[in-house]
């Protein structure tokens, strides 16, 4: 549950009026039993849309979407409150469970599979791949698992706010502070009139390079602005050094000020996740050595000046407003959101349409994601073409999403809570190594894959991008498959001695058709492939099942999980188009 006090804390820290759901999602004229004008053309079309918009289609969601139509479904999702994890995780820890990120990941996947605010959760996951923080940093690790889980909640609560407010929320969050070193960053040291240290430049650089504008000036369709045939850098090292001064003076919200203890605080979980305090002139006079914020004038992005002697909060507000209003932000962020939901290589026109929505006054990220999902380029894949590699549409499904799609398609039943109240989801875990990705576990601030990664061969040769293929290799295809095996063949309802550390999928619908391979394949096609399975793939699976039927002592369950498991390894399932 969203707690009021936490929401208020954000709003205060940001100096923004709360704009939750700034768009009006008004449905009063729509009768419940009317056939919506934008009803999906088919059950398969609905399932395809839900593959883009959620952690995977379920039969119930398909039926609901068919009844509501796209617009109403999206609007309802935009208005659903955030399902959050931190209070549950805090309770599990307080009950005495060992503090590791397994607790956080179990909760993440439980929400991904069962939370009703699917679009919000999916958006938060996408944002976590842009505003990256990670437990792989030694400054976070297992020690700050609880506030790290609250970072994910913050993203869920922020998911449909205006971009500028998400940027503020992320910047002030102590996990971001610790990850990119704004936390405990202090103004320059002056000894005898000589400056001996300078503020840490890490956040100043990455907030611009990765979270907002990127390295070169962009047109609204993301094409580079060229001068004399050359791209134009958005900033130089001087801007970084100057901007670094903005992000100084931060510490825990509960660091004591009387007597002052800048390096104290973080005494409670709330102290570890509430927006950071900044020890600027709002707390101490400029003459005090407790005043840790750099109050000198700052020449920042685009030649803008931030005046001297302001409070820290004012400096941060000014700086982030300068960044957020840069024309790069809309195409830079919109492109990455399209990549996470729809396709790796959006057309310039698609990016431009989304950037236009992004930049429209009063619009928020809810408007942007609605536009992304309902754009013709998202809804209408190009017709099939005949030859090898004639089609660059779509994306590789993330390994994490392939797993949640399995669970949602086959009604996975989570185990009962353990004595601490934890519901186990991830089995043996190890997703980061096996998949090359796991929520909030990126190896670096550059996410698991770059938006501009080009797999050697077809993609690089044709100037196409393939982010998720950066974590797909001869080793991870194997370890990803092994992981799926553990969640199919080794985790289904009704099996003898089922595991208790992961959900169990329901094979009954498939097993009931054990004598009818074509029926099994048809179900898998509808549930995992939104009916897009090619004749060749259907044939390979049907042949496999026919061979298995002939085997003595073959169980219907083995047929069923074989169909799902091999289908999950198939190239057509790996691709989302």
């Amino acid at each position, binding site marked *: 549950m969203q707690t009021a006090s936490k929401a208020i804390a954000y709003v205060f820290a940001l100096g923004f009026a709360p704009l939750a759901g700034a768009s009006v999602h008004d449905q009063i004229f729509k009768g419940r039993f009317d056939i919506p004008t934008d009803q999906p053309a088919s059950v398969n079309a609905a399932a395809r849309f839900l593959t883009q918009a959620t952690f995977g289609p379920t039969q119930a969601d398909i039926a609901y979407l068919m009844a509501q139509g796209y617009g109403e479904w999206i609007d309802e999702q935009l208005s659903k409150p955030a399902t959050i994890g931190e209070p549950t995780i805090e309770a599990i820890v307080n009950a005495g469970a060992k503090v590791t990120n397994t607790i956080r990941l179990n909760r993440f996947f439980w929400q991904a599979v069962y939370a009703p605010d699917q679009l919000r959760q999916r958006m938060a996951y996408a944002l976590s791949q842009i505003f990256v923080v990670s437990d792989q940093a*030694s400054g976070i690790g297992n020690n700050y698992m609880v506030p790290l889980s609250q970072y994910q909640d913050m993203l869920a609560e922020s998911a449909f706010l205006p971009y500028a407010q998400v940027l503020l929320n992320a910047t002030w969050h102590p996990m971001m502070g610790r990850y990119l070193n704004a936390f405990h960053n202090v103004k320059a040291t002056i000894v005898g009139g000589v400056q001996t240290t300078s503020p840490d430049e890490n956040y100043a650089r990455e907030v611009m*390079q990765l979270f907002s504008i990127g390295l070169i000036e962009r047109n609204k369709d993301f094409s580079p602005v060229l001068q004399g045939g050359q791209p134009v850098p958005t900033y130089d090292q001087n801007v970084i050094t100057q901007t670094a001064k903005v992000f100084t003076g931060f510490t825990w919200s509960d660091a004591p000020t009387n007597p002052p203890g800048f390096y104290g605080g973080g005494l409670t979980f709330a102290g570890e996740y509430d927006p950071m305090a900044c020890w600027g002139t709002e707390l101490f006079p400029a003459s005090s050595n407790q005043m840790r914020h750099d109050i000198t004038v700052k020449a920042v992005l685009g030649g803008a000046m931030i005046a001297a002697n302001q409070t820290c909060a004012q400096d941060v507000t000014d700086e982030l407003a300068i960044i957020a209003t840069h024309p790069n932000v809309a195409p830079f962020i919109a492109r990455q959101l399209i990549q996470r939901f729809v396709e790796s290589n959006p057309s310039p026109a698609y990016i431009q349409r989304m950037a236009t929505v992004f930049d429209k006054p009063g619009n928020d990220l809810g408007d942007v994601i609605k536009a992304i999902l309902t754009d013709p380029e998202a809804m209408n894949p190009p017709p099939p073409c005949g030859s090898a590699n004639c089609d660059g549409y779509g994306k590789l499904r993330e390994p994490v999403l392939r797993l949640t799609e399995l669970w949602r398609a086959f009604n996975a039943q989570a185990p009962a809570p353990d004595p601490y109240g934890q519901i186990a989801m991830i089995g043996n875990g190890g997703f980061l190594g096996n998949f090359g990705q796991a929520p909030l576990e990126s190896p670096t601030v550059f996410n698991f894959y770059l938006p501009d990664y080009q797999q050697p061969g077809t993609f690089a040769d044709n100037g196409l991008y393939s982010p998720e293929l950066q974590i*797909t290799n001869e080793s991870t295809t194997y370890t990803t498959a*092994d992981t799926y095996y553990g969640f199919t063949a080794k985790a289904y309802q009704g099996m003898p001695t089922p595991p208790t550390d992961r959900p169990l999928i329901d094979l009954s619908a498939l097993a009931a058709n054990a004598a009818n391979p074509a029926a099994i394949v048809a179900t898998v096609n509808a549930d995992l492939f939104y009916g897009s399975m090619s004749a060749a793939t259907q044939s390979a*699976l049907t042949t496999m099942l026919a061979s298995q039927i002939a085997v003595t002592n073959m169980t219907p369950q083995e047929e069923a999980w*074989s169909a799902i*498991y091999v289908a999950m390894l198939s190239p057509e399932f790996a691709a989302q188009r």
Partner: protein
Amino acid sequence: MSHSRHSRREFLRNLGCVACGGTAAALLPQLRMLGTALASTSVSSAYQALVCVYLYGGNDAWNMLVPFDNTRYNTYASSRSGVYDATNNPGGLGLALPTGSQVALQKIVDGNDPSSATNQYFLHPAMPEMTQLFNQGRLAFVVNTGSLVKPITMADYNTSSANYPAQLFSHADQTNQWQQAYAEQGITLGWGGQCGDVLKSGNPNAQLSPCISIAGANRYEVGVGTIPYQLSSGGLTNLSGMCNTPPCSASTNARDTALQTLLGETYANDFAGGYAQIFQRGRNLFNLLDTNLAGTTLNTMFPSGNSLAAQLQTVAKMIKLSMAQNYATRQIYYVNLGSFDLHSGMMSGTNDHAALLTSLSQALNAFWTCMGPGDVNAQNNVTLFTMSEFARTLQSNGSGSDHGWGTVQMALGGAVKGGKLYSNGGGPITGFPDQALNAPNNFPRGQMIPGIGVEQYAATLAQWMGVTSPSDLATIFPNLANFGMTHLGFV
């Protein structure tokens, strides 16, 4: 949807024109002379391997190799905001390594510099193994090397942005520029992969790529026709539910056949096709390597809890196996060690710079031992070297250091002319840099303009591997001709 398709050939032709229009054509005669000078070098059929150890995040190399003499040490200490004081400033306000008996043990003398006033250094106390290997003549340092388009001074830097690479100080871009050995944006080829293009025709087994990564996707090993084989440091694992080692049950065979059919299909969609290609390659190489790799054992103990050591152990096994099975005469390996981006916690904590350098030194030492006569017996056949996108600001930010430019790299092997520092690239900036902040060729926080271009460092290693023809060198290193020296002599 219309995705315009340009062929790679066209792409390369365009690229070539950029290079030709700029510099390469004008200086081709010089490259040709280089070729003559090296004409005696012939590609031998004896096994050779390059092992790249990438230090991700920007190794603070100025705390890895430090001047020992008082004058230069004092400059160093002052620029690093003072000597680290664990008691009063555990966060690391001052970043300079303290002197003392521990440091005296790490003292080294640069065999390339006869002057005792300037030839004394010490290595970080976390690296005693490297001190020993340097003193045995097996390890060399290449000093103040970094991404450049041509040799420059501060005056050139201030004159025009065309005189230096784009996106200095950015991790991703500088990593690319190191892995390309070419400071150009929009490229997807690495210098290791392009060496593989040239060298792989001599490899008896065409199925196994000449480029092998134990650290995932990387640009360094991508060539025009070369794609790295990516292996995990744990070696190969079975594919669950499939037939890994026949004979298998009929049910398992049915799954295996189905998967094989699916991976062998032709796919219209690039993503389906790209995935199928990788998975298929993985299955083929599993079949080639699995039994043999499992049967390949090493005598050397590698340190545990050290991810780099685990990767290098797999490299050592692959080298041993490749030599024994005659898979290849030339191989190019890639491993990495991360977490060098120590904006904070540089001097203290469980993952500080000392901890990283300990891992590095112990892993490299184990690998060197493993290559020795008592084990793989290939010390003269294998050259290991480091890359890292940049060194860091000398000046502290209060608890660590920020992104810099010119850095120090290491080369280790029996073929390395070790015990020396290599700091002369034939350009206007030579020698170990003056570490005073704002000295002539560094920036206010002690970010050094490099004296040696990445391509000079890389081309030296490429030539040792047998990539010696001027046209190959000009193709792989388009800006090499801009530099006075195309071979630094350290290997």
